[in-house]
């Protein structure tokens, strides 16, 4: 969503770059032949997230972690204090809003929940862009620098973790 905070500047990015895939485009995964820049948001919470991250890493020359969850783990990482089991138990069984007899989903198709990790804990990250959320200015700066073949340097007003 924060990507859209860039407003009309997003068109500038589209002019400079060719958007290959995203969760809202037909193509959900980066091209097998590889892309220049991959942007990942969110932390690594389960086996599916991990798979996405590895795929993105293997296909992108430059990997950007966008937002506090991607960079630090963020608020979801607070479940690391109690562990996966306790978190699932609380969410699916013990929570007051659950029907009696509720169970933790155990369909083998489901991804396995893991400890919450920052992306850099799973795959090497080239640029961490913190912020909760990162400002439109920050996102625009990072994408526009990368699209123009420069290394984005986050400092002063562009660097904030909150």
């Amino acid at each position, binding site marked *: 969503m924060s990507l859209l905070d860039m407003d009309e500047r997003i068109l500038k990015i589209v002019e400079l770059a060719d958007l290959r895939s995203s969760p809202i485009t037909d193509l959900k995964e980066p091209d097998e032949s590889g892309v220049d820049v991959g942007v990942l948001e969110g932390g690594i919470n389960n086996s599916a997230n991990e798979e996405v991250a590895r795929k993105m890493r293997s296909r992108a020359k430059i990997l950007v972690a966008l937002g506090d969850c991607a*960079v630090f783990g*963020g*608020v979801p990482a607070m479940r*690391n204090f109690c562990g996966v089991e306790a978190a699932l138990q609380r969410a699916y069984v013990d929570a007051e809003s659950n029907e009696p007899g509720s169970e933790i989903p155990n369909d083998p198709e489901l991804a396995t929940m893991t*400890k919450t990790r*920052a992306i850099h804990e799973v795959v090497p990250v080239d640029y961490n862009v913190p912020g909760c959320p990162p400002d439109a200015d920050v996102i625009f700066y990072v994408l526009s620098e990368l699209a123009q073949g420069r290394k984005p340097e986050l*400092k002063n007003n562009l*660097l*904030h973790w*909150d």
Partner: protein
Amino acid sequence: MVQITINGKQIETPEGTTVLRAAESAGIYIPRLCDHKELIPYGGCRLCIVEVNGWRVPMASCTLPVSNGMVVNTETEAIKKSREFILSMLFSERNHFCPFCQVSGGDCELQNAAYREEMTSWPIQPGWSNFTVDTSHPYFILDNNRCILCRRCVRACGELVGNFTLSVAERGAASLIVADTDVPLGESTCIKCGTCVQVCPTGALIDRVSVYQGHDKDLTEIKSVCVGCSVGCSMNILVRDNRIVRIEGDWEGKVNSGLLCEHGRYDPLTEARQRITTPQIRKNGKLEPVTWEEALRTVSDKLSPLAGDKNGVAAIASTRLTVEALSMFKELFSDRFNSNMVTSIEEGVPTAAATRFAEKNGAFEGKLDILRTADTVLCIGANINRSHMVAGFLFKRNMPKGTHLITIDPDISELDDMANIALKTKAGSDLALIKGLQAIIVKEGLGRVSLILPNADALIEQAVQTSGISHEELVQTAQMLAHSISPVILFGKGITAQRNESLIEELHRLAVLVGAVDNERFGLLSMKGEANSLAATLLGLDETFKLNGHQAVYIALGDDYVSKSLVERTSKAPYLVVQACYESKLTEQADVILPVTIWSEQEGHYINLDGRTQQAQKALPPHEGVYDNTTVFSEIAARANMTLKAEWQKAILERKSSVSLN
């Protein structure tokens, strides 16, 4: 002086300076976290490391003294890398969630340090272990998850405040800031001064009242002076949208060097009394709101005819008023109305005896600063831990270094637990006790000056008999005082309330005898009472309040509290005008209520207990519909065809002060 080079810049600095301070003096900033200019260098966080030519490893500049020819570099690639590593370690040690921490975004020294190094992530992730959060305290929260173990709070609690409540439990990364023997903060020996919160570099100690009310950059800082008591601490009032968000001690403050007590820091924020915002007049037995014009006309119609009548208007003012207001009050009722009963709410209890002694003998009291270097403090009739807390900080903090404390008080004093000797005397035995102490010192030949007391044994015996203190304890007390190099004697209401000048005289004699007072040193201080206690006595507002056929009573209460005794003594007043900010038992029985500004809505001067004239600034615009105290006095004077000169600087010099004014 020592010559050193930092980042290629030649710096001349006094010997003993640390590299960090030397750099600072030359405008070179070295990142630091555990360092605080009011605290003893500690070298705990290691962030201030620098490279010193010829030295094998980086050194912590906060604890490294300069030496001649030293060449220091603070921004080499190696140092920058190490700094980033140190910060990574600090972040990984605890659980920092910046997005919802109230100090994030400018007020967190840890985050600012990381931004300075342009860190976009933490190379080392935290271990996700839970640390304790203590929410038991009424004013602040201790969240060990955000603590970097810099120990500023622990050091401030001991080194500055002398309370020694905070300490560190466990060791290494498991270390925790705890109160006392790991009891909840709210149940600990904490005196709620909030200094730990003021020095905390992260969000580990947060203020419950001001939390999430805005970042420092959103707040306007108004330098003012606390009106909580006669110590007169300098403080910064932090205001946003005409609301006081927080109050902090002013590190530049001459009296308090940044310290405040619970009353200064939190009382104004937790004020619960009901404000009065319109003048009221009793009509048919009921108080009804009226316009200022009507209220002032009514007061004037009643008071003006009483001008010149000694038993006309009895007037009493709070010593929390500014000296401007107090002097106009005195001029109006004493000089113009010629009333024979013009005094203050304190009625001179904490001041009159000392002022009378000074009128005969000149200024005899010393300055608060002397407490900072005292090696023995005798507190007699002064429970300063309750009434003048910050003055206590100045010597309590030196007690682990050997400063002794003696308390003499018939009542339990909060200082007793800390005292080396706590004498619980019988009430009214002070004079005999002081004379007894003198006699012991003279008899044992310990006096600094010669004093002939032919009946020493009888005096000692009388002291034992009257005070109920054993001979042995008296001797110990006398010896402790006499053997100290820089003793200070503090006396409070317990002494002055007896209104006995000879008590002050004997106390002074004792002070001279033990060397507390000589030609250069003035180690005898009275604590006085409220903010303008000294000013009130200098203006002569220190008599006992008695109604003797007076036809009206005027009480300029301001934002002060009301004593039961005052309410009782004025309940029979034929006509009662109360000039006040808040509803109270007193306003309930008033015939006219004139609403006025509170301390933060007015400016003016206060003369603290050691004679320092300080200016309080207006932090907030006045509440709609209230007048400044001085305006009310001018209006009443004008309506009685009187003009007030309002020359407080001259007025306070009419009487000799017990302490020199500056």
